[in-house]
């Protein structure tokens, strides 16, 4: 090209380059610190002040959190500069090809490929770590024997969802008309499942699949793709701004997993059933949840010689001493109880003392190199094949060159760097922090051995409802804070703000969604703490959501449902699962942490739609739509009278 940018590119020295890069890096880093400070500060404050436990592995966690911030900085820039423009540009080119089969085939493959690139199966496995084969055989089999099929089913579900989501743009189908029947069907199926105990076990898994499948790379990419398509496709509906694919991509996998479960239920080839082909394992060595055993109590502290002399002199004891009284022989002599040679032991209660940081500052078992390798591997696997697929389609099937390819390359590179660092930081920082806190939270209502400590603590707030209430409140703010830091939600917020030309502020969306997720996770912890059946936590909120959806304006339906699919990402999931499993492990009869993520998805739909209904009136009035008829009559009358 004659007018390439190279012909008049400025020649910048290293000094000017750093002058450009430093403020840029600082601005982005500050943005990311703003998004994660709440969750980090909250976790630390809760651990130190409410649970009064020291932080174990403090240095490792601090390093991890710093790495998360830097990773997020790169990743978000990578999304903005690389992945999203790539998705949008292919979205723009696709409809122009005029080949519907090509478009739909591409959409299906994109959904399928994205699921394999960001497999959520590891997350689901960790959620089902405590599942015992004899208690929930079908669930156990799905997670272990049929995990390949499970991923494929989810992938096909996501593929069909992207296909339908793209098709929807062409025919101007309202998201309401797709989401309401789909959710209705899911609820009916779930209700049917809940009646059979074998099938009931997989409900949590199925609904969580919907929440987990859409990862931080897939969501922005698919979102951008939809926006690109909608820029070009004019179906006559102004509300089709490109959203909705994520919604369908969270609903269809649920259906796919439910159907897969039903198939294996009918085929009777799950663990312990007649056609089971896998190895039966003895349950004793398999069980990962230890039997209830006596918790190690803190040994009494030694009484010092000083305290002993003081006692001899004054006969007074300080407060934290305990007196044990052991009579050896008791006799009833003439109506008086006479004790022979009573023995009184005085022990000093040991107190842990307030300590900010545990002596263990770095987990010796964590190998930095190994963690970094996994993080890089996962980042490359999630990003590179998808990008190559997109580029291949654009170059060879659509025969279009990529605009601003230089920026996109830098962006994709940033995304890979960012996601690697981000994954490393989560493994080093957020997971240990969230893990120790999550497993420590039950200390508020029961006696447990806190994470990384030797002796039992708690119950801190009474073992009844008040302690559980503390745990549930904790869960609310955990969900709130973690959601604000989610990269995919940040990307969605930016996109919504851009598509509505700034009318729907990112901060408004984020706050709505975060509060919704908070409520959802609190409800999920309720479910686990009181061992409530999942179906009775799914049906009422989803019914409310369906009613709200019916009455809400189309754009809010799009934003609300999409944000529900986005919320459960790499930050929320490990934190929430750690807590769910921690609490579940201390409640008899609860073995898995499923269901919390599903509930975390329904919360934001409710809050966003509610805000939509609240604010719709004002916006309508202002734009003159709501009062148009009125005003028209009035002004006509006025015109006559004047």
């Amino acid at each position, binding site marked *: 090209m004659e007018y390439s940018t190279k012909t*008049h590119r400025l020649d910048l020295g290293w000094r000017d380059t750093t002058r*450009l890069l430093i403020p840029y890096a600082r601005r982005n880093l500050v943005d990311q610190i703003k998004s994660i400070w709440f969750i980090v500060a909250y976790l630390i404050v809760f651990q130190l002040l409410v649970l009064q436990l020291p932080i174990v592995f403090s240095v490792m966690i601090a390093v991890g959190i710093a790495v998360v911030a830097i990773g997020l900085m790169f990743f978000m820039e990578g999304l903005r500069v690389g992945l999203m423009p790539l998705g949008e540009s292919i979205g723009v080119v696709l409809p122009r090809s005029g080949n519907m089969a090509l478009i739909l085939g591409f959409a299906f493959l994109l959904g399928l490929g994205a699921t394999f690139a960001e497999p959520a199966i590891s997350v689901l496995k960790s959620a089902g770590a405590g599942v015992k084969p004899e208690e929930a055989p079908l669930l156990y089999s799905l997670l272990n024997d049929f995990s390949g099929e499970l991923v494929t089913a989810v992938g096909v579900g996501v593929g069909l969802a992207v296909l339908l989501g793209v098709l929807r743009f062409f025919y101007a189908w309202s998201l309401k008309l797709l989401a309401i029947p789909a959710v209705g069907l899911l609820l009916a199926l779930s209700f049917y499942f809940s009646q059979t105990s074998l099938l009931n076990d997989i409900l949590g898994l199925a609904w969580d699949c919907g929440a987990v499948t859409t990862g931080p790379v897939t969501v922005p990419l698919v979102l951008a793709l939809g926006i690109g398509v909608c820029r070009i496709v004019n179906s006559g509906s102004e509300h089709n701004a490109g959203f909705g694919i994520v919604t369908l991509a969270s609903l269809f996998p649920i259906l796919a997993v439910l159907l897969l479960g039903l198939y294996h239920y009918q085929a009777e080839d799950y663990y312990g059933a007649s056609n089971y082909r896998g190895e039966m394992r003895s349950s004793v060595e398999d069980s990962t949840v230890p039997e209830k055993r006596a918790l190690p109590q803190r040994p009494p502290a030694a009484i010092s010689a000083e305290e002993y002399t003081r006692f001899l002199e004054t006969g007074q004891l300080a407060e934290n001493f305990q007196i044990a009284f052991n009579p050896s022989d008791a006799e009833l002599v003439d109506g008086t109880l006479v004790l022979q040679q009573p023995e009184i032991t005085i022990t000093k209660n040991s107190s842990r003392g307030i300590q900010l940081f545990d002596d263990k500052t770095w987990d010796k078992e964590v190998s930095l190199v190994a963690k970094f390798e996994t993080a890089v591997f996962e980042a490359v696997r999630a990003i590179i094949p998808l990008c190559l697929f997109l580029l291949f389609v654009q170059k060879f099937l659509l025969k279009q060159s990529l605009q601003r390819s230089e920026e996109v390359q830098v962006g994709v590179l940033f995304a890979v760097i960012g996601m690697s660092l981000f994954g490393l930081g989560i493994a080093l920082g957020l997971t240990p922090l969230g893990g120790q806190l999550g497993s420590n939270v039950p200390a508020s209502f029961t006696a447990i051995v806190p994470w990384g400590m030797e002796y039992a603590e708690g119950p801190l707030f009474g073992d009844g409802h008040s302690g559980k209430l503390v745990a549930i409140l904790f869960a609310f703010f955990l969900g709130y804070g973690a959601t604000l830091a989610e990269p995919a939600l940040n990307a969605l917020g930016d996109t919504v703000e*851009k598509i509505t*030309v700034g009318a729907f502020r990112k901060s408004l969306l984020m706050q709505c969604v975060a509060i919704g997720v908070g409520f959802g996770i609190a409800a999920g912890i309720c479910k686990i703490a009181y061992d409530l059946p999942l179906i009775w936590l799914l049906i009422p909120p989803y019914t409310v959501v369906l009613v709200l959806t019916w009455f809400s304006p189309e754009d809010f339906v799009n934003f609300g449902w999409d944000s529900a699919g986005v919320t459960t990402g790499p930050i929320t999931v490990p934190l929430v699962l750690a807590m769910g499993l921690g609490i579940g492990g201390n409640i008899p009869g609860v073995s898995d942490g499923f269901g919390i993520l599903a509930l975390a998805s329904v919360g934001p739909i409710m809050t966003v739609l509610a805000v939509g209904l609240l604010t719709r009136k004002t916006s309508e009035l202002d734009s003159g739509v709501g009062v148009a008829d009125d005003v028209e009559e009035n002004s006509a009358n006025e015109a006559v009278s004047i």
Partner: protein
Amino acid sequence: MKAHYDEALSALTAVLPQIYADQVISALTEVHGSSVLIMHARGTLLQDKWYRRMLPTISPAKVMLQLWIPSSQLDAALAIVIEHGKLHLQGSGAVFASHCDHFWAGSAFHDWPVDALTDSSIENHPGLLELKKNLSVIYAVVERDQTSVLSKVAINAGAHGPIVFLGEGHGLRDKLGWLRITKQVDKEVMMLVVEERNAKDIFSAIANAAEMHLPGRGFMFMIPQKYGMFNLPSLVSTHAYDASMQQIISAIDSLNGHTHWRDQSAYTKGVKKTAAAKRRFVGTFRADQCMVCAVVERGSTQQLTDMMLAAGATGMQISYARFAANEEGCELGGAKINKEYAIFRAVRDPAQAKQISDRVRRDAEQADLADICMYLQPIPLVASYVPGAHNYRSAPLLNPVEIPSEDAAHLAARSKA
């Protein structure tokens, strides 16, 4: 160049709420050979009660229509917009038109037929009676987080609630190679329709608040319009509230039939300007500039950006719009496949603007860039940081102009009366 572009062309812009915009678009595209560019924008919404400010605000969605039309058909097009857009209603929107100089278009650019619209008689279109002359449109290209503050400033200075749409800022950024990612491309463009008599005050109030004399703060300019009308709200109100001051003012306007009663110059004692404030505007404002406006198929955005930069434009603002036309487009599934256009705006002094226009035209012909048009519009006032001045606080710069103080003249006139 196509033959009938010898005839004068006008640029017509309309800002409407979504629902009326759809009606206007369908009415306009019924006209044979017509075309219109559609952009999304947002209105401004300031809550008038403190407790309402607590609630989240969602600004009303607006649609901006842009069309280029032979001046002889302008009245008829305006009539369609006013009629279908119900522009006589309080708070419904705005429409305005201005003249395009040196218009040229590539061979593939969609042209508006000479005889598409003929009926523009006042009898058939009473809405045309309400058109005002002496309107100016102020554009301010600023960073995205600036618009909410500037909207308040504009409303306090007496304007209606501004319309905001998204734009990209290009120029220096495109010369940086991959480092360009360090410069945010997204900007917001704030648009205000004001009467010419208020234009300078509002303009300088915004320029002051936006600190346009500092580098990197943005860019604003004013385009006088041939005629138009605006009926834009700035506050939310319902029947339950008292009438807003704006409603009362517009009621008095229509009773009086003029707006002279609104002249407050006799009552204001003149704005005190400190020496420093005065000095910093020297060089910030430039008069008698010229806007180069180009419209190009979106796929060629980068190509045209490079051409404009090569031709001497230093900075430009780009907004994207959807194209709708009365023609057979290609269809797929149940939907039409849109074309998209990019609208470029760059401001230079008139001689340079003409030179840019000529050079881009030559280059476009060479590079077979056919789906393009370009025209110039005079700009009486521009505010921006002027590069090249090292000490921008004191050095005299290109064509400095003072914002004339009309207070003295008005007071004299008043006292005579």
